[in-house]
């Protein structure tokens, strides 16, 4: 008894030493905190604000071996977002990101408002103890010795416990060994054999391997058949649960069948394949702009929505256009554009926290051999496969292997059908709201997005959105001496990239770019010169596209705030206006090509 209490005392002492050493190294973890508010805050670029490190607070000591305790930044007592190392993340994204650099604190407010006039208190907290590293190392060495001295009595305790547990463990182990893993008994006197062993001895090698080959072949044939079926034909668009956000990755064949089944070749196909604006994020499935466009255009046309959230036209829209042009003599392609912006062929960016999920579709289209010749694109794809940037090289190769496997086995074609019609097998922890795990996707409603305009949210996010508006629109034009606006040099460079993406001029004549604006509520916040530049950027970009043989127009420049649900997506209220505006252009394009007279209903 005396021995046991002695061990317990030593254990308690070691525990106490650990607590003291922890308090010395991370004082804030045990409540030893000093806080001081930021003063003389000054604005930086974008959403970034700066303030000098508070005088009343000592900076944490530098450590070389042990981890440092990072100070935290609070906004009205609430810990702010994330500690980041990049200044640009604070400037562009904001949302409470901050960093400590030199003698300065660089930060952003949690909701994009200005810390200069939002009335909130920003404070830095650090540990109140500042112990030099050698002393910290010494305290941890003593703590370690205390624990090591406990090892012999601990070992004896474990040994005593083992005497109790060992027979039990042995029995469990033997049972498992008998049931799961026993080498083939060659001794004929052995009477009992485990279940798995008996089962495996029943199997005959040749029929088994024939079965494996047959199973694979069946799946491949099933995949071929699945590729010909129109899985998502009962849907108007690739909504949340049947897109990469819902862990569904439609194949190129799925997309092609989606279009083919919805549009007989006799009709004029209007393929809307852009990103979230074309997808109709913000519009309920019964208010979807492409359905309204279909109603506006009538039966001569077949409107198909092949858009995906955040998709660039280089990954999905343009490959679909190139492939389907060979099947549909009368095809019009509708997609979005914004001034001075040209998407790259592939979106591999190791620095971006955003993962772009559609590169695989471009590789599938490339491998299909159905794309129109475009040497620059070929060069880009080959270049990515042998890029010196490891991130790009590995991701490109992964996407290529994925496309090769899909071409050989049609496994995604098959399992996409099964997951849509019968059972779903993929779990994604990031889905919000959580989706039923096994439920086939056909049972899920197209209702995941917000459908009402939240003015308050836009006001809260105003600083961030105004920054985007200026960066993506206002700065894309320059005013000349005679007061006219012209595109900036960078915008011209990107325009040339768009031209190169469409080397075939007949494709340009079939392409309608919707040059999309931002919510007018944001434009109201611009000063008169900025507002002029903003509107000029939309007009100049449309004109420039038109001069190169495309069709383009600034969509929704005269819409009201309520026609949007946020900064740039059109709402249920905006959808009919959007449909009417696009219908007028589409009809004109069809007439110009002399198609409306040929169409057979």
């Amino acid at each position, binding site marked *: 008894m005396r021995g046991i209490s002695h061990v317990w005392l030593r254990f308690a002492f070691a525990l106490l030493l650990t607590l003291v050493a922890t308090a010395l190294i991370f004082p804030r973890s045990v409540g030893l905190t000093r806080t001081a508010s930021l003063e003389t805050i000054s604005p930086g670029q974008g959403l970034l604000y700066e303030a000098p490190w508070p005088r009343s607070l000592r900076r944490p000591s530098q450590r070389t071996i042990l981890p440092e305790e990072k100070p935290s930044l609070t906004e009205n007592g609430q810990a702010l977002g994330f500690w980041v190392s990049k200044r640009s993340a604070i400037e*562009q994204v904001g949302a409470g990101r901050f960093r400590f650099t030199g003698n300065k604190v660089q930060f952003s407010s949690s909701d994009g408002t200005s810390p200069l006039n939002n009335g909130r208190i920003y404070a830095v907290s650090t540990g109140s103890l500042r112990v030099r590293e050698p002393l910290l190392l010494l305290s941890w060495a003593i703590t370690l010795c205390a624990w090591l001295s406990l090892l012999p009595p601990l070992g004896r305790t474990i040994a005593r416990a083992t005497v109790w547990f060992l027979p039990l463990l042995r029995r469990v182990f033997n049972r498992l060994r008998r049931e799961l893993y026993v080498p083939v008994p060659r001794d004929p006197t052995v009477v009992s054999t485990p279940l798995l062993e008996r089962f495996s001895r*029943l*199997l*005959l*090698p*040749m*029929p*088994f*391997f*024939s*079965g*494996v*080959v*047959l*199973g*694979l*072949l*069946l*799946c*491949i044939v099933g*995949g071929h058949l699945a590729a010909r079926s129109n899985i998502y034909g009962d849907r108007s668009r690739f909504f949340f649960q049947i897109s*990469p*956000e819902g*862990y569904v*990755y439609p194949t190129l064949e799925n997309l092609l069948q989606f279009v083919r089944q919805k549009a007989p070749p006799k009709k004029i196909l209007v393929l809307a394949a852009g990103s*979230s604006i074309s997808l109709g994020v913000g519009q309920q499935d019964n208010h979807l702009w492409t359905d309204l466009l279909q109603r506006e255009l009538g039966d001569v046309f077949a409107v198909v929505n092949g858009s995906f*959230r*955040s998709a660039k036209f280089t990954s999905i829209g343009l490959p679909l256009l190139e492939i389907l042009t060979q099947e549909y003599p009368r095809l019009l392609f509708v997609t979005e554009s914004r001034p001075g912006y040209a998407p790259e062929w592939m979106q591999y960016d190791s620095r971006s*926290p*955003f*993962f772009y*999920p559609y590169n695989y579709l471009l590789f599938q289209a490339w491998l299909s051999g159905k794309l129109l010749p475009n040497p620059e694109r070929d060069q880009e794809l080959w270049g990515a496969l042998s890029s010196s940037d490891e991130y790009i090289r590995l991701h490109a190769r992964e996407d290529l*292997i*994925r496309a090769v*496997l*899909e071409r050989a*086995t049609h*496994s*995604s074609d*098959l*399992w996409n059908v099964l997951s849509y019609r019968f059972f779903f*097998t*993929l779990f*994604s*922890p*990031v889905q919000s709201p959580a989706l039923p795990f096994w439920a086939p996707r056909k049972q899920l409603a197209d209702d995941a997005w917000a459908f009402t305009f939240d003015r308050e949210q836009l006001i809260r996010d105003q600083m961030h959105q105004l920054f*985007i508006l200026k960066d993506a629109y206002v700065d894309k034009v320059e005013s000349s001496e005679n007061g006219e606006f012209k595109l900036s040099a960078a915008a011209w460079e990107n325009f040339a990239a768009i031209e190169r993406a469409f080397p075939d001029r007949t494709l340009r004549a079939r392409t309608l770019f919707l040059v999309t604006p931002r919510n007018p509520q944001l434009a109201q916040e611009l000063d008169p010169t900025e507002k002029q530049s903003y509107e000029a950027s939309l007009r100049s970009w449309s004109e420039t596209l038109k001069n190169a043989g495309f069709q383009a127009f600034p969509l929704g420049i005269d819409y009201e705030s309520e026609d949007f649900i*946020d*900064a740039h997506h059109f709402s249920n209220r905006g959808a009919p206006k959007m449909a009417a505006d696009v219908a007028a252009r589409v009809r004109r394009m069809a007439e110009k090509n002399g198609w409306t007279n040929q169409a057979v209903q």
Partner: protein
Amino acid sequence: MKQNIQMTLRSALSVFAGLFVGILFSYLVYRLSLPVKPFVYVAF
């Protein structure tokens, strides 16, 4: 006779077990080719 029936049953069982493994392999090809990173929409 009994031996023949046994062999037939064993062959059938082997084929079905093989079929199961083949289908599992197809599923693995599908599953392993999906990206590890989930796609989370970020608006800029």
